[in-house]
């Protein structure tokens, strides 16, 4: 995995170079952030010619390592104005890695109105004209391309949202079932891809050689240790496969941290209608799939296939965040409607988290009523069609809040907040405020530590210990995001020491390194420092590491607390 392909959309030329210098030893988020930091002028226009879209598999991707199928996509974000790494599963990362691709860097900007596709195979990387694909939703697009190329190629694509360069546009990746249901959702990476005139990347790894492992015995032993941990832990072996990521809804709602009706309360009265248990019953009864492995090499199988009352496929990969954002956050308790929303967002190419936050703000503004599922779907169609109202919605929660004069707008660095309330889970509030990515839950998942009471306990409702917690989690996550591993390995990793030992052993076995746990932490810190530095050069300061005003002033039911971590403590998170 040492080939970097540069695709220049101004000259329409593709060049190849070998990984070297500062890019050596990096993968996934580590590599996207290093490239963006070195090559993208921080003050550039995010949908202009100087931004770059960087696509990288992770350090363990392409091997037989379990749960190693994650892809990182990075650029300067049109939504936050800072650095972005957006992470996605599906089938593309493994194929790219097997072809020896360390990174694809899309640069420049094509002639106005022209649209292209990129074909990646063992014969190289080639651009092809794609004006005939203009305006297609991801589902129809993928069907067309699979008919032309092969059913089993992986496809990375944008829908109309990306073509219209909307700030909440996602990049879709085909799932193992062939549908475009996995998304690099956060931060408008779809808009960057659209601004580069790139509609789709088709990846075919037929004929690719096996990935070379430096120390096969070490790798095999570490890999088995890792798999054992994933299979032993009840969350990864029972909870996630059975209930999907929606396994979280009951816990977070009970803890009073499930943001309801645009972050106005922490517990939703309709949660039982959209919970993991209910979703399991509905899907089983109707003959859909409750357990499904959406991403190559995954053994957790958190994905699903949701069907209607007649058993007809609606969507796949219906997740906790999507159900929360377009459910509780909008006062909607209709799981079928939420499934349809998921399908629409996947098809138009919208981030489901940002969409739910945005609809919540629109409901706060009175554009629709809270609980109006039909109204929510209407707003999504407006956005997907690019009507004037749609262009407001499609640009996210912050933009919509401004347009309608709303103050309760749950964003940090203009990115919509995910499904955890900072006032009930103070640690996640620290992560939202300080992460280089804007309001991001995966960047430093302080949720479980805050709610579980085992060993050392950090009370989620108090400010104590939250800074150290968030800091450590942000560092660890940055490292895991570089390995190409699914973040859900964190659950067994937190309880079973062999899990992380397995990860380190696999890295050492693959590359002949001698990493220790301290080295992993050092890698995480390095990545965060690089990202912080870019953001500083892009004009960010510690004043941007803050939650919106209302979190400090409005007491949130049921615990009736405000966000209590002082600003001076937030400023300590990145002092390492």
């Amino acid at each position: 995995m040492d080939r970097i392909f540069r695709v220049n959309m101004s000259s329409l030329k593709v060049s190849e170079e070998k990984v070297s210098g500062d890019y050596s030893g990096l993968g996934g988020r580590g590599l996207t952030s290093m490239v963006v930091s070195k090559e993208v002028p921080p003050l550039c226009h995010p949908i202009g010619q100087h931004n770059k879209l960087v696509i990288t598999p992770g350090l363990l991707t392409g091997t037989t390592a379990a749960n190693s199928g994650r892809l990182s996509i990075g650029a300067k974000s049109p939504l936050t104005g800072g650095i972005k790494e957006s992470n996605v599963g599906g089938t593309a990362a493994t194929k790219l890695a097997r072809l020896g691709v360390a990174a694809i860097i899309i640069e420049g900007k094509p002639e106005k109105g022209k649209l292209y596709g990129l074909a990646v195979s063992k014969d190289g990387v080639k651009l092809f004209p794609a004006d005939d694909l203009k305006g297609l939703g991801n589902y129809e697009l993928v069907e067309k391309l699979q008919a032309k190329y092969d059913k089993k190629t992986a496809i990375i694509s944008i829908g109309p949202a990306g073509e219209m360069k909307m700030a909440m546009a996602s990049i879709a990746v085909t799932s193992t079932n062939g549908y475009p249901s996995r998304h690099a959702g956060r931060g408008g990476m779809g808009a960057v891809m659209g601004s580069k005139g790139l509609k789709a990347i088709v990846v075919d790894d037929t004929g690719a050689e096996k990935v070379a492992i430096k120390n096969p015995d070490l790798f095999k032993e570490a890999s088995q240790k890792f798999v054992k941990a994933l299979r032993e832990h009840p969350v990864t072996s029972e909870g996630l496969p059975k209930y999907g990521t929606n396994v979280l809804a009951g816990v977070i709602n009970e803890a009073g941290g499930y943001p309801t009706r645009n972050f106005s309360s922490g517990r939703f009265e309709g949660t039982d209608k959209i919970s993991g248990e209910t979703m399991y019953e509905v899907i089983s009864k109707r003959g859909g799939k409750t357990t499904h492995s959406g991403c190559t090499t995954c053994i957790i199988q958190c994905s699903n296939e949701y069907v209607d009352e007649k058993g007809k496929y609606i969507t796949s990969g219906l997740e906790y965040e999507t159900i929360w954002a377009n459910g509780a956050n909008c006062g909607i308790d209709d799981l079928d409607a939420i499934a349809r929303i998921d399908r629409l967002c996947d098809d138009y190419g919208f981030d489901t988290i940002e969409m739910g936050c945005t609809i919540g703000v629109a409901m706060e503004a009175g554009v629709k009523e809270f609980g109006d599922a039909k109204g929510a779907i209407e707003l999504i169609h407006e956005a997907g069609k690019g009507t004037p109202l749609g262009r407001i919605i499609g640009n996210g929660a912050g933009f919509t809040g401004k347009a309608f004069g709303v103050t309760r707008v749950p964003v940090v660095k203009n990115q919509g907040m995910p499904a955890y309330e900072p006032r009930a889970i103070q640690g996640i509030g620290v992560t939202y405020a300080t992460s280089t990515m804007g309001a991001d839950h995966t960047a430093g998942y302080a949720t479980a530590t805050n709610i579980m009471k085992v060993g050392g306990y950090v009370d989620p409702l108090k400010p104590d210990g939250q800074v150290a917690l968030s800091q450590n989690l942000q560092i660890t996550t940055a490292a895991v995001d570089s390995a190409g591993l699914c973040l859900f390995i964190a659950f067994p990793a937190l309880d079973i020491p062999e899990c992380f030992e397995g990860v380190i052993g696999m890295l050492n076995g693959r590359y002949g390194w001698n990493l220790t746990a301290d080295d992993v932490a050092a890698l995480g810190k390095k990545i965060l420092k690089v990202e912080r530095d870019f953001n500083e050069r892009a004009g960010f300061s510690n004043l941007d590491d803050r939650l919106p005003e209302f979190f400090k002033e409005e007491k949130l039911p049921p615990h009736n607390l405000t966000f209590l971590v002082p600003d001076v403590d937030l400023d300590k998170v990145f002092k390492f």
Partner: protein
Amino acid sequence: MQITVKLHASLRPYGRSDSKDGFFPLETSKKTTVREVIRELGIPPEKVRMILLNGRGADSESVLSNGDRLALFPPEMAFNMYVAISFRRDLNHQKKS
């Protein structure tokens, strides 16, 4: 005194037959502990991995009061972040004995 109980996922079969979504009222005597409720419901203790009392983390020794809301979660729904921190020795919390 009366409390409400909410059982999640694989704990639901231990609830009452009339409970909806694992939610039901329960009459208990004063000073009942969580452990006693778990025993009364016939739940094997190792099946309860996480306890939330009125939305806050609790353990089996917690004493219940009138009107309390007790939620019990099985192992497949509970997770612990502390092992991840353990490799950062400088951030280790003191383990409670």
